[in-house]
């Protein structure tokens, strides 16, 4: 299992997860304090999915993301300063402040965008994958989406087309058990979204989405299949969001119990990875703390960069509607 994974890759996954965690905790506080305008959908708890997948990718591999998209961009190499600047609506942001949390994207990193429309991404990932195959590259495209989006017609159409044309696309379902505020059992009659894969003629794989190494291994197989021209895979990662659908409230909610939240926090992806790294003698507790401190400083520098960045000019309101 994890024996084949190099120390370097494990440390890389770990650092990416820590970067997401501290970015999101900080962004959540800033939003709560009214410093970041608008709604944030925080990725805290789900870090293992983005990071276990993304370490396999280069900037030439495309991803489509979701409304809960900060983690995807950070895992793909996003910089804190430009991300915070985007959330703050500053001209130095990834989209010059015109995208915001739910629409942050970046061409250089192959990030086709967070997406405020549930199920908006999968068909776009199919087209990007089509182009990769058409142009005879070995690049893949990955569509992240949730259990809620798996009920959208757009997902069905995309999955059918990806399988039909045997495209290098991986559908990564982040099943966090809730479509917004509705428990999975109240929005679909299946437990495993991966069951749907056979209906499209592609493999469906279920993996523990709190275990970054398990995600890494399963994603690796799916990506290799795609790069080898063997077509798409539906990879379902069972995961959990610690906070509310939107915003930072974690406990005392009417639609899920505190016990449930505690259960999942007991399987925290970063804690589990740090325990593994310590056990294998790769990273001591002290060294892990040092990484957290280092990332915290980088996050703070990102916030300062954003806060000191200029607002977009009024003229830019009318720019970039057309070429």
């Amino acid at each position, binding site marked *: 299992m994890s024996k084949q994974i190099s120390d370097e890759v494990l440390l890389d996954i770990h650092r990416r997860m820590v970067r997401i965690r501290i970015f999101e905790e900080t962004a959540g506080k800033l939003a709560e304090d009214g410093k970041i305008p608008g709604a944030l959908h925080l990725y805290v708890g789900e870090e293992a999915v983005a990071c276990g997948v993304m370490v396999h990718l280069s900037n030439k591999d495309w991803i489509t993301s979701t409304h809960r998209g900060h983690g995807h961009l950070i895992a793909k190499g996003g910089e804190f300063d430009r991300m915070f600047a985007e959330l703050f609506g500053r001209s130095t942001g990834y989209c*010059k402040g015109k*995208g915001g949390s739910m629409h942050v994207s970046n061409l250089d990193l192959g990030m086709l*965008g967070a997406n405020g429309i549930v199920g*908006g991404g999968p068909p*776009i990932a199919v*087209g990007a994958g089509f182009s990769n195959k058409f142009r005879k590259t070995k690049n893949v*495209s990955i569509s992240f989406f949730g259990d809620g989006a798996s009920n959208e017609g757009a997902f069905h159409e995309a999955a059918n087309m990806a399988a039909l044309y045997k495209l290098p696309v991986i559908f990564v379902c982040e099943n966090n058990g809730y479509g917004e505020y509705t428990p999975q059992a109240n929005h679909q009659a299946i437990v495993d979204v991966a069951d749907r894969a056979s209906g499209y003629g592609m493999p469906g794989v279920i993996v523990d989405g709190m275990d970054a190494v398990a995600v890494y291994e399963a994603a690796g197989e799916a990506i290799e299949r795609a790069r080898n021209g063997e077509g798409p895979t539906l990879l379902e990662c069972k995961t959990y969001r610690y906070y509310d659908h939107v915003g930072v409230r974690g406990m005392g909610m009417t639609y899920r119990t505190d016990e449930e939240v505690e259960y999942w926090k007991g399987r925290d992806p970063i804690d589990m990875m740090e325990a593994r790294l310590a056990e294998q003698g790769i990273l001591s507790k002290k060294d892990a703390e040092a990484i957290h401190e280092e990332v915290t400083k980088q996050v703070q520098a990102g916030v300062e960069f954003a806060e000191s960045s200029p607002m977009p000019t009024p003229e830019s309101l009318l720019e*970039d509607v057309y070429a």
Partner: protein
Amino acid sequence: MPQMNMIQALNSAMDIMLGRDPGVIVIGEDVGYFGGVFRTTDGLQRKYGEHRVIDAPIAEGGIIGSVIGMGVNGLRPVAEIQFADYIYPGFDQIASQLAKLRYRTAGEFCAPVTIRSPCGGGIRGGQTHSQSPEGLFTHICGIKVVMPSNPYDAKGLLISAIEDDDPVVFFEPKRIYNGPFDGDPDKPAVPWSTHPAGEVPEGYYSVPIGRAEVVRPGEDLTILCYGTMVHVAQAAARLVEADAEIIDVRTMVPLDVATLRQSVEKTGRCVIVHEATRFSGYGAELSATIQEECFYSLEAPIVRVCGWDTPYPHAFEWQYFPGQKRLVAAIEQVLEAG
């Protein structure tokens, strides 16, 4: 010069662009192996291969979503939505993704996508094969909306649409695919070979997006129209012997305001005609624009002639369709007013 009907002209445009640009692909329902239900893509798959002229599942959201992904990733796709009435399952992908992509990424991403779709009535298609939904798309910032009225423009505008770096929704009035229908269903069909705009160059040329065309110069009033109505308007103007200036709008977005203004400032009177329903139809935008631009030149209230505010009726096709009779009445009303 060769004679082409609109179908042949559109086919020629795609043929030329598939030949010139290896990034152009054509995708849609029945477009490949079968050649399209209206034959618009006939022969293209045989010539360019299954990898470039692609049969899609009946999945309009999937087709439009996937051409966005192709567009941002280096291709220049042309999607066919078999009937404009089928475009609604893909509307989310057009309105929320395709149209907004450039703006929300501050110009970093664009999708040079063309979505072709046959529209309009007069073919006894009933509610779901006759609609003219162009107004819905003109209300979405970030896409261009085009509707040609003849084979020459159809080819030249489609080439411009494919070359355009912005997404273009390209509506084809299917009633005039084979000939310039003047609104009288009892007359024998007239083929494009009898019409000057049926002469279409074999090779590459383009007609710019964003320019209206004065198809008949006149002094007494201005008729603003597009698509099939260009031919109905010409027939109606002959009936009243009015010296009407008839303008084929051709591209709804961007709108050639200057040509419209120039005409109405001269004539002082304006009739607007389209097949689509009246309320919040594109004619309302034209009317508001004329009012804003030419208020002090107007000598009479602007009159709109449109489809009735109902679903497209099977039994009342020619009562619904804004034919010559209704247009003549409107012309007389505008000429008599003031």
